[in-house]
């Protein structure tokens, strides 16, 4: 049985990615799109500067959900769907929050949002986690 019930807020995650996170994430993921790692290129295509990878922010959402609900167990997250909106930038805090929307046996469903500077950069995110019985 899960300790969670619908309406519970999950523990929030606050992260301020440093200036070089997009470079390190590019190396880790293999996504070297210049909008993430080249300030001048990003500005030339109309962005305020280099932006974080959406999948990096989705990675934070996955991390926050698993930490809050299952103590970071890598088996816990069963499903995660997100919509990317706007953009997020390094050197500004990202806050991941969530609310439990349903519990069915060992399954917990959470609505998750990632915001930066008041803007929702990931929204309509639904995470489904399995809580281990022990």
């Amino acid at each position, binding site marked *: 049985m899960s300790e969670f019930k619908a309406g519970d807020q999950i523990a929030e995650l606050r*992260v301020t990615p440093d200036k070089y*996170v997009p470079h*390190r*994430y590019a*190396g*880790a*993921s*293999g*996504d070297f799109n210049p909008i993430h790692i080249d300030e001048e290129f990003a500005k030339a*295509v109309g962005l305020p500067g280099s932006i974080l990878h*959406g*999948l*990096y922010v*989705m*990675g*934070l959402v*996955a*991390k926050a959900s*698993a930490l809050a609900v299952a103590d*970071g*167990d*890598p*088996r816990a*997250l*069963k*499903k*995660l*769907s*997100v*919509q*990317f909106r706007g953009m997020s930038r390094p050197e500004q805090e990202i806050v991941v929050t969530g609310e439990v929307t349903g519990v069915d046996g060992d399954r917990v469903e959470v609505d998750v949002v990632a915001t930066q500077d008041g803007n929702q950069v990931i929204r309509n995110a639904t995470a489904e986690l399995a809580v281990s019985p022990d």
Partner: protein
Amino acid sequence: MAIKTDAVGKSWPAFEYEVGREKIGEYCRVLEIQNPVHFEPEAARAKGFRNVVAPPMFCVVYSAGAMGPVLFDPDVELNFAAMVHGGQEFEWSEPVCSGDVISTTPTCLEIYEKDGRGYYVFGSTSVNQDGDEVVRGVWTNIVRGV
């Protein structure tokens, strides 16, 4: 101009990726994921994993080689300059550990136009060396001004 939909239903060859312990560590250090099961084989085995285990979103690392070529396929004819990553969905099954060989097969699920935007929706299915499914993905790219 009507959007080109020739690629709908098309599949591409599977892409094979061998998962390495240091690559999992590199990914986890960027995300500041600190659970020792992602770094130390003994810690991973103590929790019932075969070896150092990848966090769920590591799936983007072993899937990337499959999804990249799809976006460049002339049948898809996707305008990169106007493209944004609109949405992403993953559904996980078997955990992925260091030493696993993961094969990812991409398919084109949908291409459609809505309010002047092109929606390009791709699916991916990843299986391990035993043929067990590890993750299934839905990747939505949006192109402005089609």
